[in-house]
């Protein structure tokens, strides 16, 4: 099989994935009462990434062939899809059912950045314990549980930074510490995986060649198991941190864009004439 043939044939039209995409769009449309703003772009981007993660050849490769493809899926589900979808939501007050009603327990988690942080970073570490990593590849139900939990933990992680309930967002400076420490967390894991002489996911060491692409991967692409794991570790180490850094720069922009509370805005409007003057000597 050539690379081209593989890329064309390895799509997996999983009805679950398509159904989730369609249902999400329907729910979103209903919630917006079919008055769309530009924010729907974020949603579509998020769902497109979600679809590519689980239906494209990435999934075929992650299914027992390449640890690095599995890592890519992991990162997309944890760090790309949830923030994109959160960005598509309009700001809203905290609903009553979350403040006092039956979702109070969930709100407790959402309200505590430390809990969110541990969910997001812990999720990364947890699924790379060798036992769980192997189980997720060999058992389809654990595999699905992994996908769902990654998405949920991703939502929890990004909630205090870009969640729609602005009251629950943490201050930009705290957010910078939140994201930087998360980067440190995944850097350490990435470094350990990159330099570890032991296989993290031993199942990728001897793939079952269901699709007949093993020689393509190992000979033509040159991805031996050792290189594959190094690549996986590096994905977790470098691009993951770059995603956190993007969040940090976003927070920085938000912080410098803040003008302060309302009376201050009023005051600065009265000084607007002054602001428009050039200040060269």
């Amino acid at each position, binding site marked *: 099989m050539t690379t081209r043939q593989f890329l064309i044939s390895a799509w997996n039209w999983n009805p679950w994935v398509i159904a989730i995409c369609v249902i999400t769009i329907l729910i979103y449309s209903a919630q917006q009462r079919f008055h769309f703003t530009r924010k729907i772009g974020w949603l579509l981007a998020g769902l497109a990434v979600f679809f590519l993660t689980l239906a494209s050849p990435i999934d075929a490769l992650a299914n027992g062939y390449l640890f690095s493809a599995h890592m890519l899926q992991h990162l997309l589900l944890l760090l790309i899809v949830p923030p994109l979808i959160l960005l598509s939501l309009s700001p809203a007050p905290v609903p009553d059912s979350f403040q006092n009603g039956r979702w109070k327990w969930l709100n407790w988690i959402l309200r505590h950045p430390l809990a969110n942080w541990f969910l997001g970073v812990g999720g990364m570490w947890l699924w790379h314990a060798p036992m769980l990593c192997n189980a997720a590849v060999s058992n389809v139900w654990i595999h699905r549980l992994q996908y769902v939990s990654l998405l949920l933990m991703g939502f929890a992680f990004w909630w205090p930074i870009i969640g729609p309930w602005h009251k629950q967002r943490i201050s930009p400076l705290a957010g910078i510490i939140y994201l930087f420490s998360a980067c440190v967390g995944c850097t350490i894991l990435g470094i350990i995986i990159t330099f570890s002489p032991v296989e993290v996911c031993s199942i990728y060491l001897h793939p079952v060649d269901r699709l007949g692409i093993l020689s393509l991967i190992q000979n033509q692409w040159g991805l031996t198991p050792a290189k594959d794991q190094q690549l996986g570790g590096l994905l977790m180490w470098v691009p993951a941190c770059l995603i956190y850094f993007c969040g940090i*720069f976003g927070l*920085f922009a938000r912080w410098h864009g803040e003008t302060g509370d309302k009376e201050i805005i009023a005051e600065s409007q009265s000084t607007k004439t002054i602001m428009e003057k050039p200040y060269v000597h």
Partner: protein
Amino acid sequence: MSEAASTFVAIETPAAASAPRGLFSWVATVDHKRIGILYLLTTLVFFVIGGVEALLIRIQLARPNNTFLSPDAFDQIFTMHGTTMIFLVVMPTLIGLANYLVPLMIGARDMAFPRLNALSFWLLPCGGLLLHFSLLAGGAPAVGWFSYAPLSETPYATTSGVDYWTLSLLILGIGSVAASINLIATILTQRAPGLTIRRLPLFVWMVFVNSFLVILALPALNAAIVMLFIDRHLGTHFFAPANGGSAVLWQHFFWSFGHPEVYIMALPAFGIISEVVPVFARRPIFGYEFVAASTVAIALLSFGVWAHHMFAVGLGHPMDLFFAATSMMIAVPTGIKVFAWSATMWGGAIRLTTAMLFAVAFLIQFTIGGLSGITFAVVPIDWQVTGTYYLVAHFHYVLFGGTFFAVFAGLYYWFPKITGRMLSERLGKLNFWMALIGFNTAFFVQHFLGLMGMARRIYTYPDLPGWGLLNMISTVGAFLLGASVLVLLWNIIVSLRHGKPAGDNPWQAWTLEWATTSPPPAQNFDRVPPIRSRRPLWDLAHPENPDPIVGGIAARDGFVLEKNRVGIVSFLITESVFFLMLILAYLYYNTHDMNGPTPATMLNPQRTGIYTLCLLASSFTIWLAVKKLERKKHSAFRWLLTLTILLGTVFIIGQGREYLRIFHSGVMVNSNLFATTFFTLTGFHGLHVCVGVIALLILMGLSLAGDFKQGRIEAVKSIGLYWHFVDAVWLVVFSVIYLRLLL
């Protein structure tokens, strides 16, 4: 001015403010201005020493096959030149400038911890003398400023030079970290009312970001140095390949410090330029937010690019790929800065003073150095030129053409504030042009020499066509550069005596340091002007046309921090990195099979688990103790403190028994890599527990003496945090070493 003065904000009344005189008053001083001056004078001495070393190198290289220096002397001199310039000149100069200027620029009386400040300074001459003492003790280190293993291990570096190098760098590292913790605490907690973080002068902002780089990067070096020292003196095998150690691990450890270090030496220089360029272009900085944010971007990215120093090691394609990408990426925020400075000058009413000339030259030379730096991100080019004079040219363009020119700009700009007298502009111009021509003559030709294949760190070179000529040009340039420094020294001496009196604000600058007298009084300010924008003195001088208010009229940021807490948290961050390196070294060596003792045969998780519970319980008791003290229940506090001390002691005894058991089975720290890493990691943790117990005993003494009766219990809270940290580290160490055995 007089009505404006009524809105001045008075800050805390000064203590007795008459400046003490005499030599001893300088030794005993805790005044940040005097300490800043001491820093600058000390670094000036080392700058001259390092410069003379550079000239010796250039004399040796002036002609092919020269015999002026022996190979060994050449190795020693280039090692000393690099180490001196980086650790004894560039870093302390920037720290010294920050020390002098940051409290003035933020309208503070002094640094947050004046005594700690004095300590960080005095560690500098100690470290410097220790390093140079090696010359009397059998020879200076001759292994390069990066001390690559195994060359730096005992079999290859037989004199004690490397030992002095390790000890000296450890001392200097501790000094830098202490200074940075101090700067962080100062900037976070000592700002004048109204000076919110978004209104900080860019120099202060960059020093702030830079201080985080220091406390995160230096402990990596310190950990590596400690391991090297243990290797050399206890015969262990961290970096000795003959016994399974990894020389590449040294490179990883060293460069994970070394690349952030490049930015540690550049960011404050960027800060100087961001102050000098706007003042002499008579315009506010273009894109303040972008300059500030790009500083953060540089700081963050600088931790993810170190492997580009190691492309030639053979890290494999995946590593090369990722690190080439991040290395190129870091050019973006740096480029943003260069654009911002250029745009500030664009259309400004530029005054070409000496300071501004140096700043403009900085901009051009730093850009050249930056561009040649990007070429190193291209892996195949890196392989070709990494060991050549092309690299020497590159980093001298960054560090001399960049950082030093910025420091000179800063010196001409702030000298009037520091001394009350202007530096002579006539001598200054001479100094500038000599430095500019000398520097570029000395280093530009080295690009060509490097591309022609001339290897660095070799004491001589063959007589190939053109090499002799280009090297002679370089040497002449170096001497011209050296002469320009003499002009600077002459200028300083003459101006100190006969310089024009400066007045408070000779450059019509806009930041707070110019609001006080030159030189400032011991208490810095009696009152500071109102601060509503980034240029308070502009607003004061132009009430009809003030700058836009930044971030509303709020006089404070949304958070209030206590300086002791900031200090201890910064300290714990730096300690975490130190332990992280030890833990990574343990993991690196203990995940595959080896001969000799192994964790499985030597350790008993259950037994150590019991002692672990003791330590964890002590975390609870100290937490409770602090709670009691907050409610002023002093005797309950003392009982809980005693319990904490006892639990800590039990843990230490447990660890001691574990060590004895291992010793009795004939295993020593040098037996194999398990023993090496195990004893180093648990030993350093045990040391921290002992320090914690001593600190708790001191608290006990203070409590018995009635020290906490007035409710000043910050010390107790800080030690409490430290104790929690020690316990948390043990939890990680216990999981990594013991719990892994149960899986």
